[in-house]
């Protein structure tokens, strides 16, 4: 950092005073990070996440897939954890996820998505759970059934369900709705929805700006 009275070493211009230089560098750092995250400005948080939910979710985040070469086609990889907005409707639990479209620059490709949910079951109980994937219809009017998964749950604790291409496509559009429909008598309340540390969430592995990226010459 040049002395206040001298020229800038790199460009020969009269050196800025140190305070202005610091401000310039901080603004440059902000701009650089926001540009690389495809954000026009820093996000303002709509729904704060509790530390307990954050800690629980981060234990399930994993590094990039082994052998992945993000530079291979210049795409940038993201792992996104989206907590459910939950609602109950006639004995079905509906989970709404908003996988935000901040990253739509260059097209967002969801490579993998899985649902994580916590179940509290009575001992020695096996429970069949139907997970229905609902997507917005062509004119964004109603939700229609895209596919469903049948799950046998025989122990309390966290469970992971890998979601198929229909759910990945819904995530790519920014909005995924799942319905948990219990089969048999086990009470609906077995799926723990509330409580900071047990909120259901979706983990999505996303690539932005991959193969179709316009190369700058």
């Amino acid at each position, binding site marked *: *950092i040049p*002395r206040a009275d001298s020229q800038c*070493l*790199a460009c020969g211009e009269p050196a800025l005073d140190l305070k202005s230089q610091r401000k310039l*560098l*901080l603004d*440059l*750092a*902000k701009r*650089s*990070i926001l540009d*690389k*995250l495809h954000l026009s400005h*820093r*996000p*303002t*948080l*709509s*729904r*704060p*996440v509790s530390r307990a939910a*954050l800690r629980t*979710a*981060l234990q399930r*985040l994993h590094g*990039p897939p082994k052998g992945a070469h*993000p*530079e291979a086609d210049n795409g*940038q*990889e*993201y*792992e*996104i*954890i*989206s*907590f459910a907005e939950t609602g109950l409707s006639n004995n079905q639990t509906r989970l709404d996820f*908003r*996988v*935000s479209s*901040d990253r739509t620059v260059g097209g967002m490709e969801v490579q993998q998505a899985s649902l994580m949910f916590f179940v509290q079951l009575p001992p020695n109980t096996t429970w069949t759970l139907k997970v229905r994937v609902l997507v917005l219809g062509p004119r964004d009017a109603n939700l229609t059934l895209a596919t469903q998964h049948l799950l046998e749950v025989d122990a309390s604790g966290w469970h992971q369900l890998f979601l198929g291409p229909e759910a990945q496509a819904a995530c790519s559009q920014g909005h995924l709705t799942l319905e948990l429909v219990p089969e048999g008598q086990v009470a609906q309340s077995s799926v723990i929805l509330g409580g900071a540390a047990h909120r259901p969430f979706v983990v999505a592995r996303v690539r932005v700006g991959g193969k179709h990226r316009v190369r700058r010459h």
Partner: protein
Amino acid sequence: GIDCQGGSRMCCRQEFFVDFREIGWHDWIIQPEGYAMNFCTGQCPLHVAGMPGIAASFHTAVLNLLKANTATGTAGGGSCCVPTARRPLSLLYYDRDSNIVKTDIPDMVVEACGCS
């Protein structure tokens, strides 16, 4: 490459740490606590042009000095102080829907500088 110290005028790496708390970004960036926005600054006289880092051998520097002084006219264009090694910045942050996002931004942290 070398780090800038005191009145160093030769090409070097200037460390510059941005503390996210200082700029009010610690509420949406979960990890890390800051960003090392290091940059390259300093002069690249001809006899060190093309060095991967100024720490190249004295012998090479003298040879290049002889070349530069005997070359007729000045070699085309100057030599600039540029990054020669960089690493990614791993970020964990909240997006506007309060989703937790983890990503590695490639080539964000300058580790070494040298003369082009």
